[in-house]
């Protein structure tokens, strides 16, 4: 009986934490009066780890599927920039609450944009990907994954930063973990992060596809 209660409590906690978001800004315009034009955008990753590349891939897909903007695919980005992905430096403000593309990277981004030829370049980073394991004395372990997601959208030809993104996401594995692939829960976390960014992007920019 006690064991059953313990199982329910674990499942409840996992459900509560599963897909649960941390705090932060999912997508906000730097100048709230700025109007995003439904033109074209390329998502590029500012990091070169697996989680950075997957986040860029998922964000590209979400923007393509749900907004009116023309979105360049990640394969096209790779073809246009053979050394892609490249690490893009950031400057941190207010203890990581906001991160901006480092001004020293502007020239490099300008060169990338010249190859990609889109009106907007959306740079995203997935930082501090962490796995925390909890093992109960009764047996059984659970893992919680968390990542900090950052982003800046830049407008061209001005190269001006028009938006910022800085939030934390968590995801916990469930009793189904045994039947899932190794990266499943991190993948889900990154997919959900991309979905959330695009939810907010559509709300703020009014560029959603009409259904």
């Amino acid at each position, binding site marked *: 009986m006690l064991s059953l209660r313990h199982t329910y409590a674990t499942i409840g906690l996992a459900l509560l934490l599963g897909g649960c978001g941390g705090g932060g800004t999912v997508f906000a315009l730097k100048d709230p009066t700025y109007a995003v034009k439904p033109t074209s955008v390329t998502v590029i990753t500012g990091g*070169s*780890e*697996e*989680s950075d590349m*997957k986040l860029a891939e998922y964000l590209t897909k979400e923007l393509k599927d749900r907004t009116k903007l023309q979105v360049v695919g990640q394969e096209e980005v*790779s073809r246009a920039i*053979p*050394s*892609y*992905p*490249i*690490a893009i430096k950031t400057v941190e403000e207010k203890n990581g609450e906001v991160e901006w593309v480092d001004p020293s990277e502007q020239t490099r981004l300008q060169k990338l944009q010249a190859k990609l030829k889109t009106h907007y370049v959306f740079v995203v980073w997935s930082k501090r*990907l962490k*796995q925390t*394991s909890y*093992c109960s004395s*009764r*047996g*059984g*372990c659970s*893992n919680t*994954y968390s990542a900090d997601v950052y982003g800046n959208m830049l407008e061209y030809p001005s190269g001006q930063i028009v938006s910022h993104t800085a939030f934390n996401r968590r995801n916990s594995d469930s009793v189904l*973990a*045994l039947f899932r*692939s*190794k*990266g*499943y829960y*991190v*993948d889900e976390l990154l997919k959900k992060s991309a979905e959330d960014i695009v939810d907010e992007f559509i709300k703020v920019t009014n560029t959603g596809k009409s259904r």
Partner: protein
Amino acid sequence: MKTRRRRSCLMPAIGLALILSGCATFHLTQEPFQPKGKKLAVISGLTNASSLDVAQALGEELGKTSRFHVLSQRQIVQAVPDYPQLVKGPYKSAYFEIDVDFTKTDMARVKELQQHLAVDYVYMLWAPATVSHGSSTWFSKKYLVTQIVAQLFESPGGKEIGRSQYAVRVDDETHHVFSDDMRRVALELAEKTHTMKEPTSSRK
């Protein structure tokens, strides 16, 4: 069920300990193997710092421990346009552990790379994940571990000769891989490919 969950949790820790303490870091997929040539290039399939660092360190160690004539990373940069570049690697995902699948390698890109390199063998490696373990306290030190998956291909043709999966420790401050770990990987590769350098006698 409980036992299996606990086991799944312990496996990465045990695996890591084994990887660092003497498990195989290379195995031949074509046996028996006799080297047909001596020129080898260690190529990074990713553009991240960890992969490039491991490629450089392993190339250097292989040069010291084996009879392979290993191309330097500078020579590779000169030979391959836009090196380093992304080559789809043999895994499904690689966040904390590499979910290896050797059928996923982009062989077209591997063959394309081989055309630029006048070598007999290409050792392609991917180091997609560097994970931090433990925490720094008075009694213990936080350390970083880079996980690597690699394939050795014959050139030209792209026939797979061997496979690797291992982890190496990374210095928390300098972010360079530990040369001891890299030497062990190089020695095993040299031993299994029958290219081990003869020990030079210091006596006499």
